[in-house]
């Protein structure tokens, strides 16, 4: 019966249209439910930190908290800089020159996230086989430039966005 067939077609259209509208509606409700778990305004507001570095002697480092994560600020000695730059890039699992990890003219300052790129532990300073950092959790060794040398971590320790406000102040973030 052609008349009945036509009826069924109209019904099919209504079904498809209803499902589509329903899917869009469910999607519109689910997205806020998912996105509410992302960092909120208060978390985002903590995005910058200013650090006074005037009291840090060469060879020493300080650790500050930025967005809940430790940031290492190390004032390196000329020997340490020379050591970092003497490394053959072919020896690095994640090749990166030391020059790319510091600000030009401020080569003594290494500013990086003190977070192991493996599973997020805080590496210990002046430890490990490469005179840099050593992560106690799963045994990753970092060199004096914070580059991964040995162990399960896939990449070098991250350099956050930072700038020198003046000679004694660094702004992170």
């Amino acid at each position, binding site marked *: 019966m052609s008349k009945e067939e036509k009826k069924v077609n109209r019904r099919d259209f209504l079904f498809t249209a209803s499902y589509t509208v329903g899917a869009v509606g469910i999607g519109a409700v689910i997205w806020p439910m998912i996105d509410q778990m*992302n960092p909120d305004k208060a978390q985002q507001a903590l995005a910058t930190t200013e650090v006074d570095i005037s009291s840090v002697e060469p060879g020493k480092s300080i650790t500050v908290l930025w967005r809940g994560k430790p940031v290492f600020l190390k004032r390196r000695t000329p020997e340490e800089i020379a050591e970092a730059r003497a490394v053959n890039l072919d020896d690095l699992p994640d090749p990166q020159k030391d020059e790319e990890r510091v600000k030009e003219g401020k080569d003594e300052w290494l500013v990086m996230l003190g977070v192991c790129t493996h599973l997020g532990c805080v590496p210990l300073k002046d430890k490990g086989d490469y005179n840099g950092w050593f992560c106690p*959790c799963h045994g990753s060794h970092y060199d004096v430039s914070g580059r991964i040398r040995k162990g*399960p971590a896939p990449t070098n320790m991250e350099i956050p966005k930072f700038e020198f406000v003046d000679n004694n102040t660094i702004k992170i973030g």
Partner: protein
Amino acid sequence: MSEHEYTPKSKAGKWFNDRLPLLTLGAHLTDYPTPKNLNYWWTFGGILTFCLITQIVTGIVLAMHYVAHADLAFASVEHIMRDVNYGWLIRYIHSNGASMFFLAVYIHIFRSLFYGSYKSPREVIWIIGLLIYLLMMAAAFMGYVLPWGQMSFWGATVITNLFSAIPLVGDSITTWLWGAYSVDNPTLNRFFSLHYLIPFLILGLVVLHIWALHVPGNNNPVGIDIKKPSKDTVPFHPYITIKDAFALLVFMIIFAGFVFFTPNVLGHSDNYIPANPLVTPAHIVPEWYLLPFYAILRSVPDKLGGVILMFSAIFILFVLPWLDTSKVRSAVFRPIYRQFFWILVIDVLMLGYVGAMPAEGIYLVLARVGTIYYFLHFIVVMPVVGYLEKTDPIPMSISEPVLTGGAEPSVARKVNDKI
């Protein structure tokens, strides 16, 4: 569901049962024909139900005193321990209860592996059970974070960072899980919410697990299909209930031993230090029940590879019913598989041990050997042994070996007639 129609005796009972057949369900559960040869390895289902209820009841009580805030959580747990009436008892039952829950579930899982309870027609029971196990691990992990001690914080950091191994979207997923740029107050808050939710999800799955069990009925130590009801079965109540109750009592004695005499032996002393995002403890170890998987994670010198292998170690169990090619269920009649079963048990125990040790030297070698065997067991040993093994003859019924093979048939027959 039920093999017979049940009619309540009282008029009120009949009136109610016609409208909601709860009494029929009760009668089904009471009369449920159970193989008469179930041994004590079969009592862990009941024990696990007890564990779940214990965790829910103590957990609800603890939530009345706990504060899920990064600045207050640690102090509120100490408040529970020192100020709240019997707070120390309730918290120790809850924290040791998690360990006892896992102890029981591991015995339950290995029971299933030995007697082939995961095999046809019980695959769905097995898969639901694995889902329960996954939820248990999630609940235990999040619960361990709540006291906000050093192990809580760094355990949460390491586990959530596992997701950062996912290519491209890993970091976004990790940040989304945290609700911050590191493990922080939002993380604690949502973990508390989910920790409260998961036990009820588990409860729902337990209902499905038992429902799925009651369709084919229990497997049994000889692993053969039996007629139900027959002289091979006994009613669940009182025969199984009394056996379960006895096993539960023994279990509770061990449980109480931990709670009253060594309540912290299964925990880690570092968790009595408040969380500090600047200092990672020298040795991060998960709770004992996650150690074998932790050992697998650490045995791979590659971040993504380790994470994939660790999750595979759990997910491979889901396809186990199709990896096992043997037609015989119970390892009692499988002389070759039986030996491999015990090798697997030793392998998992060894992985647990090296998971607690530093990942270097001999421990790393053992972890790698253990990991390789773990996967070989499921991918190679189970399919191949199933094909090649010459199994022992299986009995026609549960009663047969007793009646024909027993040393004193007359005694055996007497016992059998009683049933």
